[in-house]
Structure formats: structure tokens, C-alpha cells
């Protein structure tokens, strides 16, 4: 704890200390007179290695290093939501007040406001026995999120004294427990948790409930469950960030944790702008009331970028433990992997594939395994869904980060350059993407949308696959030589692609489409397909069907039929029937 421990060497964000025994692995330390935050990442009897989360310019050998005796942790309590933090949970809004528009080093601002008073309702009384993870008080955190104060994991005992309901600050002790050894444990409005450890839960539940996103290609074709994991790989310009934003805006999680990990600063300011203006349709409140942002942009220190993923995950788990469904968007995990590589290179570790350290797969699996739908310690149900963007180098999906992510996620939404070039958004390629959740989720779809939904989906998938096979031929000899029934497959697949899979994020109705409408859209397309097939079988040429302009109507039904009027699909189908009947009459 004394300044006996001093800097020996400096190389970029890596600082070394000689001949010391005062630190433990992953301990958080303060470096230099400016007290830059760092973490111990390597120890041997001669040299201890520290990674520093801030610019190291100006540090000198002989500058002090102070230990904290605890691993890198975050402060958990009310005030997290509607806030924006950097990768190590420093509040960027408060830092702006302190140091202006540019982030200065060594800012020591408490992550959560110590002064703000919270309207606390105490849920226990003297004599109650509390276990880890149980709720002892609540307060409204934002207009739609109730913050539930949980007994920290590892703490339990009998309630010795309780404060009355009222306004309290973050550090006020509300409840005092007496643990089994007879020692008093005060419970305040906050707790700390090391970011690299998963928070405990009672047990994990199967992935049987879908996360509804309102994006047709995801909900219908490649659904993800609550508590599931999904990866969005795509080269630059394919719309990873757009897809993440759409999911953050519309998915039916209670809370969104958005981690901007090594991405663009302007994107974060866009998220801030947009989310504060955007009204959540379910609650009628601004989106920021249920969003936590972690912004470690690409020019902020690389070590903090590595930590930002864990910080976000820990915040997500904390709210999961209160019984919320949380979705965490990590944009992008490749930047995080590159941060690992960068630090590993500074440590002169032996590189494995493409210069990434050999522990890349184990770190990725550790990360994705923290997702899940669980029974929390307080007996509620909560979930953490992880949706990670991957930015493959050179748009090559065979690179290590994409490949390893594929192994540990169950949903793979492959973004495609040629779709993006044609401005087909979301540019999720239906041939390369997959979801392993069908078997888990189908009972839910069957129950809530009927057997039809699954049948339609399978039919649509088949048509798209048939089209893909036919396109091989068309590429070689042109579409004119195909028989009419195969031409019909191609036309129908086009209607599916343009009318169904493609979705306009900027259109008021099309940006979020309820499942019921998704089903009816498929129904309309398949209805036309089935009907047209019987007509073609009766030797009426397809060109006559095309002239009716029905496929164009299908392509525009997403705009023509508002989400609130599903009954208009009956009219559409009746219209199509009438038009087609003129051919057979």
C-alpha cells in the first residue's frame, strides 16, 4: 500500500514493477502521481506487469504504484440506467462536467452519484432472515425501471435493524444484518462486484422463450431466445451497427446494455441522440429510461476496451438478478479480441493464429457462457441475451475471431456484402445464417402463433433454397430458358426477398413488425405462390400472371398495410384471388 512499489519499465500501456510481492493477479492498482487506473496481468518473482487503462505518456521509472487489494470491480447501484460509462465504469457525463469535452487522465469521479437521493421502500423487517441475492428494498430508478436492492452474493444473516422508508443516498446503510458469526453487515444502496466473475444464480433455465425483435428475418427465419447468444459478423459497411441499433430499439428486453467497444465516437453520439428522442412504444417513455451505454471508442485506451465487455456484462447480470430480461449488444467483439492481441503482443506472449493469443477461444467462450435465462437467487426469472457483432478482417469469415465466435454462439446472422451493396437491409444472408434455437422455440411459436407459422416459415425457407439452386443455372444461361414453374419459384423468392426479408428501418411502420403481421405476410406470399402454381399447371403462361402486377403488390404490402390493421391481409388475398380468377375464367 505504500509507495515502495515503483515503476521500473514502460512500454505503451504496459508498465512493469520490479521485485515486489505486494500484488495479486488481476488486482486493480493506481499508477503514478496522477493515479491512472491499471490492473495486474502478470507476476513472477522478478517482474510484475501492469496494464494501464489510460495514456501512459509522461510516466517515469520511480513513480509510485498503489494497490487496492481487490480485483477490477464495478459499483452497482441505482443510477446505472440512463447513464453512459467508459470501459471501466467512469461516468462520462460527470467527467465532461469536470474536465470538458476531452477526457483528461486520472479522473477520480465516482461511477454513480453519491449525492442523489433515492426514494427507497424497505421490503424487510427486523428479525427476517435474508440470504444472498434476496431483495431488501426497492426504489424507482427511472420511470419504468424499479431498482431492487439485492443482498450481495456471499452475504446472509438476520436483519438487526431497518431504516424507515424515505430518501437515502447511495452510501447510506438501510438494513443492518447480523451474520452467523454475530458480526454486523450494513447493507447500503450499492455493492461492488469484480467484472471478470459471473454473478451467481440459482439455476439455469432452458431457452424456450424467443427474444422478439420485430425484425422479420430474425424473428421468423433465425430467432434467438431470451438468454441466448447471437453473433452478427460482417465486413465494414454491411450494417452491423445498424442491426444492433435496431435490436436495441425494438427487442422486447426490459433493459438494454449497449457496449460500444472500440467503435466510432460519432456512432455513440448518434445512439445518445436517437435513444433520448425515441419513445419506447411499450412504455411511452424515452428509450434512455431502459438503456445503459458503455462507450469505449476506438481512440480511448486499449486496455479499457478489453475491460468494457466485462463491465457491460456485469451490469447486465446485476439487473438480471433483480428479475429483468436484459439484452447486451457488444459492438464489436473483434475490437475486444484485437485489444487482447495488442496487450498480448506487448507482453511478448507467443502468438497463435493471426497473432491472436492462444487463449482467445477460452476468453470468448467465457464471455458467451455468461448469457442465459436463469432462476435468480431472489426467486424471479431473469435473462441476459448476448448479441455480439464481429468485424472480420478483410471480410473473411475464416479468421479466428469469427470462427471461434461461431463455436460458442447458437445464432449466426451472417451479413453479406453484396446484399449491402444492393442496399438490401438488414443484409442478413439467408443461406449462410443459422439459428440453433428452432427446436427450443418451436413449442412457443406453436402455442402463440399456431402451427401455421412454422409451416409457413419452412415453406419460405424451401423456396429460398430452391431459388438459390436455380440461380446457379440462371447465372449460366439466363432465366428465359427455365420452365414456367421454376420461373414462378424465382418470382416468389424475389417477393420474399424484397417484400419480406428486406425491412426499412426508417419507415414508421416497417421498422418494427409484430409477429402476427410477419405471419400474415408469409401467408399472402405463399397463397399467391400456391394459387399461381395451379394456374401454371393448367398451361397458362406465367407472363400472364406477371402482368397482373400481384408480385409488385406483395413487394409493397409492408408499406401498404399498417401494423395495426391485420384484417387488410384478407382483402389483399381476396383481391389476388379475384385477379387470378380472371385468368382461369
Amino acid at each position, binding site marked *: 500500500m505504500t509507495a515502495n512499489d515503483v515503476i521500473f519499465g514502460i512500454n505503451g500501456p504496459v508498465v512493469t514493477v*520490479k521485485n515486489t510481492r505486494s500484488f495479486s493477479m488481476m488486482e486493480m492498482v493506481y499508477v503514478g502521481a496522477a493515479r491512472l487506473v491499471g490492473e495486474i496481468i502478470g507476476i513472477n518473482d522478478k517482474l510484475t506487469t501492469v496494464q494501464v487503462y489510460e495514456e501512459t505518456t509522461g*510516466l517515469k521509472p520511480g513513480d509510485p504504484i498503489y494497490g487496492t487489494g481487490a480485483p477490477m470491480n464495478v459499483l452497482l447501484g441505482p443510477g446505472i440506467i440512463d447513464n453512459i460509462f467508459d470501459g471501466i465504469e467512469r461516468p462520462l457525463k460527470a467527467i465532461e462536467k469536470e474536465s470538458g*469535452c476531452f477526457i483528461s487522465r486520472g479522473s477520480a469521479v465516482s461511477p454513480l452519484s453519491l449525492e442523489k437521493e433515492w426514494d427507497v421502500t424497505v421490503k424487510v423487517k427486523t428479525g427476517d432472515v435474508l440470504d444472498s441475492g434476496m431483495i431488501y428494498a426497492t426504489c424507482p430508478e427511472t420511470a419504468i425501471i424499479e431498482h431492487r436492492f439485492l443482498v450481495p452474493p456471499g452475504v446472509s444473516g438476520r436483519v438487526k435493524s431497518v431504516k424507515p422508508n424515505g430518501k437515502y443516498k447511495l452510501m447510506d446503510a438501510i438494513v443492518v444484518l447480523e451474520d452467523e458469526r454475530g458480526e454486523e453487515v450494513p447493507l447500503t444502496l450499492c455493492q461492488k462486484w469484480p467484472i471478470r466473475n459471473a454473478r451467481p444464480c440459482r439455476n439455469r433455465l432452458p431457452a424456450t422463450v424467443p427474444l422478439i425483435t420485430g425484425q422479420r428475418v430474425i424473428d421468423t427465419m433465425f430467432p434467438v431466445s431470451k438468454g441466448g447468444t447471437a453473433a452478427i459478423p460482417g465486413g*465494414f459497411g454491411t450494417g452491423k451497427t445498424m442491426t444492433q441499433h435496431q435490436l436495441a430499439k425494438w427487442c422486447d428486453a426490459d433493459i438494454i446494455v449497449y457496449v460500444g467497444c472500440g467503435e466510432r465516437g460519432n456512432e455513440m453520439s448518434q445512439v445518445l441522440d436517437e435513444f433520448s428522442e425515441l419513445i419506447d412504444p411499450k412504455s411511452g417513455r424515452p428509450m434512455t429510461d431502459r438503456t445503459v451505454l458503455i462507450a469505449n471508442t476506438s*481512440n480511448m485506451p486499449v486496455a479499457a476496451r478489453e475491460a468494457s465487455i466485462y463491465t457491460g456484462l456485469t451490469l447486465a447480470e446485476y439487473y438480471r438478478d433483480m428479475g429483468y430480461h436484459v439484452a447486451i449488444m457488444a459492438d464489436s467483439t473483434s475490437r475486444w479480441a484485437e485489444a487482447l492481441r495488442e496487450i498480448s503482443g506487448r507482453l511478448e506472449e507467443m502468438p497463435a493464429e493471426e497473432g491472436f493469443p492462444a487463449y482467445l477461444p477460452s476468453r470468448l467462450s467465457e464471455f458467451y457462457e455468461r448469457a442465459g435465462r436463469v432462476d435468480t437467487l431472489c426467486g424471479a426469472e431473469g435473462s441476459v441475451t448476448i448479441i455480439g457483432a464481429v468485424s472480420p478482417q*478483410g471480410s473473411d469469415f475464416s479468421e479466428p475471431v469469427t470462427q471461434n465466435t461461431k463455436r460458442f454462439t447458437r445464432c449466426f446472422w451472417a451479413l453479406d*456484402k453484396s446484399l449491402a*451493396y444492393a442496399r438490401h437491409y438488414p443484409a442478413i444472408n439467408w443461406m449462410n445464417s443459422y439459428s440453433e434455437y428452432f427446436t427450443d422455440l418451436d413449442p412457443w411459436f406453436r402455442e402463440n402463433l399456431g402451427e401455421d407459422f412454422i409451416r409457413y416459415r419452412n415453406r419460405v425457407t424451401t423456396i429460398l433454397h430452391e431459388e438459390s439452386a436455380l440461380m446457379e443455372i440462371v447465372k449460366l444461361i439466363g432465366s428465359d430458358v427455365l420452365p414456367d414453374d421454376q420461373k414462378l419459384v424465382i418470382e416468389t423468392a424475389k417477393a420474399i426477398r*424484397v417484400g419480406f426479408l428486406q425491412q426499412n428501418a426508417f419507415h414508421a411502420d416497417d421498422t418494427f413488425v409484430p409477429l402476427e403481421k410477419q405471419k400474415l405476410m408469409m401467408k399472402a406470399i405463399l397463397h399467391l405462390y400456391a394459387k399461381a402454381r395451379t394456374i401454371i399447371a393448367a398451361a397458362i403462361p406465367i407472363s400472364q400472371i406477371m402482368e397482373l402486377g400481384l408480385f409488385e403488390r406483395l413487394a409493397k404490402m409492408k408499406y401498404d398495410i399498417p401494423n395495426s390493421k391485420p384484417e387488410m391481409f384478407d382483402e389483399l388475398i381476396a383481391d389476388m384471388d379475384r385477379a387470378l380468377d380472371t385468368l382461369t375464367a
Partner: protein
Amino acid sequence: MILDYVGVKEINGSLIVLDHVDNASFEEMVDIRLDDGTYRHGRIVQIDGDRVVVQVFEGTRSISLDNTRTRLKAHPMELALSPEIMGRVFSGAGRPIDGLGEVYPEKMANVNGTPMNPVSRVYPRNYINTGISTIDTLMTLIRGQKLPIFSGSGMKHNELAVQIVRQAKIADEGGDNKFGIVFAAMGVKNDVADYFRRSFDQSGVLSRVVMFLNLANDPIIERILTPKCALTAAEYLAFECNMHVLVIMTDMTSYAEALREFSSSKGEIPGRKGFPGYLYSDLAALYERAGMIKDSKGSVTQIPILTMPNDDITHPVPDLTGYITEGQIVLDRQLEGSGYYPPVSVLPSLSRLMKDGIGEGYTRADHQPLANQLFASYARVQDARSLASVIGEEELSPVDKKYMEFGKLFEQYFVNQGYHENRTIEQSLDLGWKLLSTLPRAELDRVDDALLDKYYIEDKDSLNFNTFSTDADTGDSSDDDV
């Protein structure tokens, strides 16, 4: 007490190692005096106890183990700034080389800069009219954006950059903020630097340009500092002098190669194609210095130019750049070969910020749908072309033939444009609709009927493209070619 350290322990490439150095701080500047009285400058890049590694900007030629005296300067690399830097020319390391003497500093700034707080950023929305149809319509440049030009050796990226500067300046004259240009040349040929200087002169902006020149034969270590110095100057002009600053950095590939050279001489573990593992973070630290902040009316807009080695867009430099910047303008050798200028390859080009800076109130309500439709239709042209290359154009279906025709017209009249031709946004958008009208109306599935009713031209005979003549200006552009 100021100490001079006599001699060095080791020399390796551009690095020297000093032993028994007290009180050195990381990234501190040093002066190295050679016995012949000349000075070199350097920066501390690594410290291990009292062993210090120094990067020498001017190179280590003629340094021996004991002909130097090294003095620590006790401050990191700083740039002298004042409004007077406008119109001046500096070396890559920020020293004046125009013979007009030192800058009298109003402020000294660390060239590394500090990261902008994401909370303090203002989301860029003001579009910059460049007068170039492809850029304005399909990949709109926004004030505060970083939009690189991906080019290849021998293509007309420099002309394009100059045209953007010239025409963007004209669009800006109505505003009350001043307009400035920071030009950073990294490892470019003397001719290229001279071409830029001449072009700035001709368009009458030379007095508003700050130049940082590191030419192809200048030391590579200075090259690493060049963009940092340029951006420090740009940030100062933008955020303290409230100017709109356009930063042109060319060529980022040379910069990255300099970084690679430096990294390998330091003995670091190489990543992809020998580039250091931190290339992404390093490039990001430069590109992310574009933007606007709450406290100031100014802005920094970046147009980095990079040549893709072997025209390979998956090369680490363009690849990582694309992941950091907000879009890219990609030039295409085939278009260039067909004689079209600017040879903007429309499909892979993109502006990420455009969606919020266009439309009603900025450009025109039909801008976004029109752009989507043009992209979609032009993508379809590529399909038709690849089919035609197999089965011959004659065998194509009538619709595909229409697309072939559309593709030709699109390249000839929309992409192609004179070097001095400045089209208004209305002209560009109307031209787009006119081109789309050569396709059957049913093919236009990205726009809704209301817009089609308004803009789609049913009367095919009125589609006469010759009114958009591009010949008028092409004559004199050849004079400016490098």
C-alpha cells in the same frame, strides 16, 4: 540541473538505446547533438529502469556509439500553435520549413491529443455540398465526418480531393464561420505535394491552408508524427478558433508502412502482413479526431486518401480504415480506364452519416429513397453484365437489356463529370430520376408510389441526356493532372 548523456549504448535502425538515464519519462522529447554541431530530435519510446529507447526522427545515419550528447527536454512532443499558422508550411514533425521563422506560440499542445468524450460530441448533420453527383447523391459528405478515398496508384484521387476542396469551399461561403484546410502529406512524391499547393493557390485558398509535408525521401519517423501534428493543428483551429477545418491526409498507406518499419526495428511481434498488432488502435487515434464538440462552433472533417496496394480492399490498411471511418469513397480502375472522371465505384462506396444529414430540410425529401433505388438498380446492372459476359448481350431478357442500357447511361452521365463541373444537389437528384426513368416503372421497388408519381418520367422521348454535357470542362482539366 540539466544533464547531457554522452554516447549511446546501441543503435538499431532509427532507434538508439541509452543507459544509466535518470528521470526519463515516457514519450519525453530529447535533443541529440552530434559532434559536428548538428542537432537531431527524438522521443523516448520505451523505458526499462535506467535503460531508455529513443526514436530518432531524422534517422541514425552517422551516429556512432560516442559522438552524441543527448539532453532530455522534460516535455512530450508538442506543437506550437497560434492563428498565424494559416498559410504556413511545416515539416512532418511540425517545424516551419517555409523560411518564415518560428511560430510565436499562443499555446503548446501535446500532439497525441486526448480522446474526445463521446458525451461531448455533437452528432454531425450538416451536409457538405461537393458538387459531385456521385458523392452528393449516394455517399453524402457530412461536416465532422471522416470519409476516406480508397484509391490505387495512378488513379485520380488527388484531383478528386482538390475538386472537393474547391467546390466545398464555394458552398461554405454563405456561412459565418471561417473555413480552413489542413493538408498532411506523408511519403508522397514532391510532384504531388506541389500539385496540391498549386491547386490551392489557383482556387484562392492558399492563405487558409496549413501544410505538413513529409515527402517520400523524408525520414519515416517524422512520417509517424505528421498526421498527429496536422490533427493537433486542425483541432486547435476548429475548437479554439471556431473554424470549419477540412483535413486532407495522403497517403495513409505510407503512414502505416512507416509504422511497420518502426515497429519491426523495435522488435515487436508483427500481426497481419507484418503490420504491428496495434495498427487499428493507432489509426483510430488519428481518425477519431474528426468531429464536432458542444463547446465550439468549429468542426474537423477528414478526407484521408490511401492507395490500396495491388487494388486490394482487404489489405490491412484499407480494411482497418474502413472499420474506423464513417464510410468510404472507393475508386475503380476499370472506370478510370474507360475515361470516366471521377472514377467512383458506386457500390462499395458508402457514407454512414448520410442518412441523418439528407432529406427534408437538408437536401430534398426524395433523396434517401432515390439513393436506395439507384444503388439497388446499379447492383442489378452488375448481375446483368455478368450474365451478358456468359451468354452474350443479345440473349438477355428485355428487362436485363434495359438494365445494361441504364448502367451505361449511369456511368456516362451520372458518375462521369467534369473536373470543373459543379452540380447543385437538385441537378444531381433530377439526373438520378431521369436515369431511373429509363427503367420500367415496375422495376423500381425501393420507392413508394407517391414519389414515382411525382418524379418518374413516363414520356421516354423527353429523356435526353445530352443537356448534361460533360465535355465543356474536360479540356482544361488535363493541365492540372499530375
